[in-house]
């Protein structure tokens, strides 16, 4: 079986203005949502209490919420989690939080709603830990981008390709953040891990295309750049689609079978992988082209001796 029986020859470069437009639109939308709605940060980053509980029947979310408010918890969030019998409770950080007393209070409230309710999980994160995790997540994202930028710059000898790769790579996590901000999906440490993995994978595709561009120029230095880029993308197209399709199979398996704990993680991965496929096909090479990439940049002709400059 093959996706494309014949070698494809889609004119990616000719239509690049449209794809730029689409990407810019998506980036602006993500930025606006990010700025106005922000992210629904999990207690990993904010500090606070996160508890999951299981009821014997359909959980009465409202009763639990009003019970919590009556017990003096400020702005409790109560939602179904995975099934109608499971709920997740989130409480913002408070001055003197003691897991033992919180557990006792919570159990009291839950038992009042359903005598055989069970607290399955209780996480209490102090505010200072939350701050530290936020900093270390930012560090992780920042240092990954810098390292990858350096790697690309060293590997491809020209800033034109590096810039294309970096913009394409930043495109994907921004889109993930945007969608997480629009849907207000809980943003926890696992999502940060997923975003880092996405950065790696997205670049993976770009690098494969760039590798082919280098090869195209190597065989024919006089190839028109736009054509060389089109050929490279087309020649690697079935690989790109195949790999991403197969990776999506496992991510979809994680998304539907991995349970609610991994939902955010797998959603971020799936969005990121789709965005990464798109950006490495439509964005990264096109930017390099608009920066004036030619064969000369990858394979500089050996300069003659410095004597040339002498009169």
């Amino acid at each position: 079986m093959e996706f494309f029986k014949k070698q494809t020859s889609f004119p990616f470069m000719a239509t690049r203005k449209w794809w730029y437009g689409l990407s810019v639109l998506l980036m602006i939308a993500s930025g606006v949502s990010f700025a106005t709605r922000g992210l629904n940060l999990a207690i990993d980053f904010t500090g606070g209490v996160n508890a999951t509980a299981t009821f014997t029947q359909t959980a009465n979310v409202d009763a639990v919420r009003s019970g919590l408010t009556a017990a003096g918890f400020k702005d409790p969030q109560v939602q179904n989690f995975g099934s109608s019998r499971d709920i997740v409770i989130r409480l913002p950080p408070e001055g003197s939080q003691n897991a033992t007393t919180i557990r006792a209070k919570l159990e009291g409230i839950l038992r009042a709603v359903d005598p055989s309710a069970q607290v399955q999980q209780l996480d209490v994160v102090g505010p200072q830990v939350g701050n530290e995790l936020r900093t270390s997540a930012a560090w992780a994202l920042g240092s990954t981008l810098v390292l990858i930028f350096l790697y690309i710059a060293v590997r491809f000898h020209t800033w034109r390709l590096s810039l294309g790769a970096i913009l394409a790579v930043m495109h994907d996590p921004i889109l993930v953040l945007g969608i997480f901000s629009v849907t207000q999906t809980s943003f926890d440490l696992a999502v940060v891990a997923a975003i880092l993995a996405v950065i790696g994978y997205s670049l993976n595709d770009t690098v494969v295309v760039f590798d082919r561009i280098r090869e195209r120029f190597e065989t024919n230095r006089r190839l028109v750049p736009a054509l060389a880029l089109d050929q490279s993308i087309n020649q690697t197209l079935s690989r790109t689609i195949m790999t991403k399709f197969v990776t999506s199979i496992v991510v979809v398996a994680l998304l539907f079978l991995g349970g609610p704990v991994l939902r955010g993680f797998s959603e971020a991965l799936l969005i990121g992988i789709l965005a990464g496929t798109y950006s490495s096909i439509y964005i990264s090479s096109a930017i390099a082209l608009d920066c004036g990439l030619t064969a000369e940049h990858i394979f500089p002709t050996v300069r003659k001796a410095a004597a040339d400059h002498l009169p």
Partner: protein
Amino acid sequence: MLEYARWKYILVTVVLLLGVLFALPNVFGDDPALQLARKDRAPVAADALPAVESFLRERGIQFERSYIDSGRMMVRFANVPEQLKARDAVNDHFKDTYATALSFASRAPAFLRKMGLRPMPLGLDLRGGLYLLYQVDVNAAVGQLLDGYAQDARRALSTANIAFKDVTVVKNGSDRSNAVRIVLPPEADISAARTALAQPLQGLQMTNESLPSGSALVATLTPAQIRERQDYAMQQNITTLRNRVNELGVSEPIVQRQGLDRINVQLPGVQNSAEVKDILGKVATLEFRLEDMQNSAYEAQQTGHTPLGSKLYTHTRFGRPILLKREVIATGDQLTNATSTPSQEGPAVSIKLDARAGEAMLKTTRANLNKRMAVVLIEKRRETSEVNGKKVTRDITDEQVINDATIRGIFSNNFQITGLSAGEARELALLLRSGSLATVIYEVEERAVGPSLGRDNIDKGVRALIIGMAGVFFFMWIYYKTFGLVADAVLLANVIVLAALLSLMRASLSLPGIAGIILTVGMAVDANVLIYERIREEIRKGVSPQAAIRAGFEKAFSAIADSNVTTLIAGVVLWVLGTGAIRGFAVVLTLGIFTSLFTALMGSRALITLMYGGRRKLTHLSI
């Protein structure tokens, strides 16, 4: 003809065989088990097994088998009810010999265990348990050190008959911090003071300071000394926490340092966090002091005027005031053992002191027969309260007189403390035995996962893994036919080698770790796809099948290498900066890159060369 070097075949075979061997313990699953450790912490000898076995048989408790594993006895059961019955029975019958812990034991055959091969340990999210993150007040430890230096300085100056105005500790001053300031009168001989202080303040940086009312010497701790003291406090606290965790009888606990001033404690299988935390975080020590019999405690309480050399306390049990002499005969640090025992006067703690404290005790009891001695329990804790909307933390020291009694005989290093309830006696003995914490620790994070949620997480993770892999295998087979099957074999080998590596490293497997394995399967396909697409391209160009295979592997190599480096960067960053489950994911992701490179490049080439290399008339590839 395709050829592949013989040593590469051998390498691939050896790695695969080792992989199967190391990954093997993971396939057997586990049984509920009971772990017995000797209370005196000596390793359990093999000849102790029959006694426990026959005891269990006597009680009609069904067990599968028992054996010694790294100094502890493990008894395996077919189900949880039998395990719980056994625990209660053993706790009841062997309570002086063994501490028990509920645990899981691998069903792997004994020969694997004897070779030291074990399954991957499961993270708390997969087996249930309690995760605690403690913050250690390392600055308080530095303060203690300075207090000690100040005391030594005072003593040295007094002995040398040098007058001084004041000796103060500067913890965090405006011009300097972590220093001891010795204020001298104007006429003082500074160089004599320096000489007197040279020995007690050895190693500190000494500077002169002139004040309007005389002069001062300032001895400052060097950064190296501060760090050393902080490290010492961390190490001491970790040791104490480890001891306490062991006393609690938790199976496979983890107590480890995290960063500069944090300690994380992982207790698999622990559900009751209140009891555990009460014991773990307690800073408690004892002081033995003589009672001040010359003065009236009631008078001191009413007038608020405590006689010199004494301190006023309230007796915890009887609520009456009590005056104790300031001199301490012995402290909890000088203890060599403490056990709770029943005595004629109710529950008691048997105390054994070290030689020096024993001598002091002997001297005191001999000189003070028929006078009274008291035991003071000192506990430190940290309290956070809100004052005018601001969070204020203060350290509180509770000093309680838990017992006072008339000295009826002369004793030295072996005696009993009474006046406690049975529970208090047990807890006090445990706390004293495990040593005291160097400084106050307080909890900054707690995560508790119930056992059924853990089971649920692992079931979901494994199901996602199996279905995801099945999907990939099926699709690869459809898309690449025979070569797809080769890729499937290679992917399977990849998962086996990865599982072997993780088992070898004893990295605990968490849910994100399982996600990492699943993701590795998805991404490991990439190398195969790159190679196969290349082979197809070459065939389209009309190259002969064997040449196409060779060209496919060679030309795909640079793309495979480059594209994996980028994922490697992300993996390594996560590994370095992440903690807990995130690090688990990073470990799997990073190792997965290496195993998938090895299996896809060497494994699949070996297999394909084996299949097609020898055929002289190969006209068609099933790809």
